[in-house]
């Protein structure tokens, strides 16, 4: 067995990701921007580094990166949430006030929806929350099981001027999203129709529903609709623990939605995912401060609970991402770390390297535990033409998959190539993030974006999958990737965020000063040119709650 020591375990804690000072966290809740502050709430166990005793943790920031922890916002003190204050979402009313809808697990463990609001609207920190005395405002409707009714969305306006929300559930094995209209958030009318349903996808958790612009790169407030708008339905699949989404059309008249492509409907095996790694229970919000839609997501651990107990903490939030429709493909979202993350960039180094088949090149950037990497790759045209025209190069694009085709050491004609992050000098531990370009039977090339964590750690009590998926590459585009490395989390964004992969890795020797960065090209035949910049990243210094800490942030 591998013996963890405290020095290894303390290195795993991140420097610029949001995490509580200690103990367990899961879903993001009710993110919003109010009176100059970004608010973040989250599912939190104040008592242990494993799930249990769930309350709403709370933190504020000016920039989504530098946070101050605030006191717990809501605890389980009512019969309708005594078994847990579970996930919820915020809605802004036209007068600028906030309502929060959240799921409570009642004293009988029935899932109900409850209403809460800030006690003092003049307090920009929103420290105190009042639970509506008439709670619960919604109980499971007939035909829905008492434990299949959770995670209300942010409300949006109907053309009739009512508010509308959706709540995930299931009917037998069909994942569904129920729809309710309300005027005052206290009484609700259930629509006879469902927002959407997909057979054999199981319980839908943490449904998210929002508009995206077909033409512009900005985000849209949740109520926006019109001819230039598509709507996204996202559900977190209880059965597989993946966040799936689909692009489609919303019908205001009856509160229904249909996917553009029914063969990749929400939750189907082939449907799109926000992220192909460790990423679940995400929630977006419209940031009226910067006119963008921002996505939060819970990133759980891939180590053992004994390590979590020893570390004293479990789970992170991913770096918040802006999310927009890919106006070039029209078929997928693009996600990108919020621009504020650049404020953490320290010194940078630029590289322009040509790497032949089978090479591994150390990239000298000093310590490599906190990095932001932006890279462009170009396969040498001569190699490319040779492969495409060569009938003896086996067509493999149809069969290839990151997960099943053996990872970064299995060499093909045109890949894999990319970076090994959190690597030791000898590469005894390393986490490769890479492209694999495969030729199809039609001689067209298909590009895959993958992260291989199978050699990320010599420890035997951590999960080390190979993650990834296909990534759309349009004619004339170079291959691009961005990687954020922050100790035990690696977030990778392919082709500007068309395909994203978040991994948790737990190296034992590639830590502190021994964590290195390498560029590699494991292709058999192709020479690749890599142009890239690597930034050292500062810590975000997330502070415990104090007036001084809040004042310090408010000066920024």
């Amino acid at each position, binding site marked *: *067995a*591998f*013996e963890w020591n405290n020095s290894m375990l303390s290195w795993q804690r991140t420097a610029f990701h949001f995490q509580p000072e200690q103990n367990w966290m*899961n*879903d993001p809740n009710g993110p919003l921007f109010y009176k100059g502050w970004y608010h973040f709430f989250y*599912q939190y166990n104040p008592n*242990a*580094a*494993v*799930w*249990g*005793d769930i309350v709403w943790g709370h933190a504020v920031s000016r920039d989504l990166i530098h946070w101050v922890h605030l006191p717990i916002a809501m605890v389980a003190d009512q019969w309708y949430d005594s*078994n*847990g204050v*579970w*996930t919820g979402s915020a809605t802004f009313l036209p007068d600028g006030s906030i309502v929060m809808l959240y*799921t409570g*697990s009642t004293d009988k*463990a*029935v*899932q109900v929806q409850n209403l809460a609001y800030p006690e003092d609207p003049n307090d920009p920190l929103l420290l105190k929350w009042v639970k509506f005395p008439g709670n619960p405002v919604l109980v499971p409707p007939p035909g829905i099981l*008492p*434990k299949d009714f*959770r*995670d209300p969305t942010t409300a949006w306006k109907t053309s009739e001027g009512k508010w509308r929300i959706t709540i995930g559930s299931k009917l037998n*094995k069909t994942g569904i999203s129920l729809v309710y209209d309300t005027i005052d958030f206290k009484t609700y009318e259930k629509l006879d129709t469902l927002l959407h349903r997909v057979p054999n996808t*199981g*319980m839908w*958790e*943490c449904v998210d529903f929002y508009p995206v612009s077909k033409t512009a790169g900005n985000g849209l407030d949740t109520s926006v609709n019109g001819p230039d708008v598509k709507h996204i339905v996202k559900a*977190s699949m*209880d*059965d*597989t*623990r*993946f966040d799936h989404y689909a692009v489609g059309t919303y019908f205001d008249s009856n509160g229904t939605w249909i996917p553009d492509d029914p063969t990749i409907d929400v939750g189907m095996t082939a449907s799109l995912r926000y992220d192909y790694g460790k990423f*679940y*229970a995400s929630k977006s919000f419209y940031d009226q401060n910067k006119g963008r839609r921002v996505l939060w997501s*819970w990133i*759980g*651990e*891939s180590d*053992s*609970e*004994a390590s*979590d*107990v*020893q570390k004293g903490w479990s*789970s992170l939030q991913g770096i918040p991402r802006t999310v927009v429709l890919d106006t070039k493909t029209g078929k997928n979202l693009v996600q990108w770390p919020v621009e504020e993350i650049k404020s953490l960039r320290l010194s940078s180094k630029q590289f322009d390297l040509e790497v032949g088949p089978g090479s591994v090149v150390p990239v000298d950037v000093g310590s490599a535990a906190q990095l932001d990497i932006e890279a462009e790759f170009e396969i040498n045209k001569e190699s490319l033409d040779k492969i495409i025209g060569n009938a003896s190069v086996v067509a493999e694009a149809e069969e290839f998959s990151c*997960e*099943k085709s053996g990872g970064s050491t299995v060499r093909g004609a045109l890949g894999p190539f990319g970076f090994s992050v959190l690597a030791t000098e000898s590469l005894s531990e390393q986490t490769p993030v890479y492209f694999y370009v495969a030729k199809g039977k039609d001689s067209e090339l298909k590009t895959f974006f993958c992260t291989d964590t*199978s050699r990320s750690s010599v420890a*035997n*009590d951590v*999960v*080390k*999958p*190979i993650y990834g998926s296909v990534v759309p590459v349009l004619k004339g585009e170079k291959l691009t990737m961005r990687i954020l490395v922050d100790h035990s989390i690696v977030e990778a964004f392919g082709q500007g965020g068309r395909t994203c992969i978040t991994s948790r890795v737990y190296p034992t020797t590639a830590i502190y000063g021994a964590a290195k960065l390498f560029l590699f090209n494991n292709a058999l035949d192709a020479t690749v040119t890599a142009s890239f910049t690597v930034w050292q990243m500062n810590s975000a210094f997330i502070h415990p709650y104090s007036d001084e800490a809040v004042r310090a942030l408010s000066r920024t």
Partner: protein
Amino acid sequence: SIIEPTCKETPDFNLCVSLLNSDPRGSSADTSGLALILIDKIKGLATKTLNEINGLYKKRPELKRALDECSRRYKTILNADVPEAIEAISKGVPKFGEDGVIDAGVEASVCQGGFNGSSPLTSLTKSMQKISNVTRAIFYSNSIVKEEACGSSWPSLALNIDSKACVVSLQNIQFNRGRTCW
């Protein structure tokens, strides 16, 4: 009683039935109740193993390092996995219970691995792995937790598929660790 049909869905019918029949609550319990009984068995076995470990410190002082690690792992089962699983089931969110149950098998395997092949705890480890796997399967049966594509979504796992359970293997300790949301 639902004991027999439920146990048929597990990788070890005989063990499952004998554990559940040994508890007076078994005959009238629902699926969640059966899971709680098995979690009690995990707790009992972890306590017994910890006592054994404590005794071994005197008998086999040369094993101190491995015993220290085992002690820590079994304390995790008692202080984290078991309470997490009990709370999750009683609050109606069994998947977190499943996480605790899977982890119990993992911790036992890690302990066992520390003895370099000459473990004085082999039989206790195997018992823990078996109970962990049976309990996990109970989560699948009657869909306390629905079937999960652990084979397909975690292709690098060394899976020893029996029934619908993802089983922890001793040689190559791998496990699926997911979390749910609400």
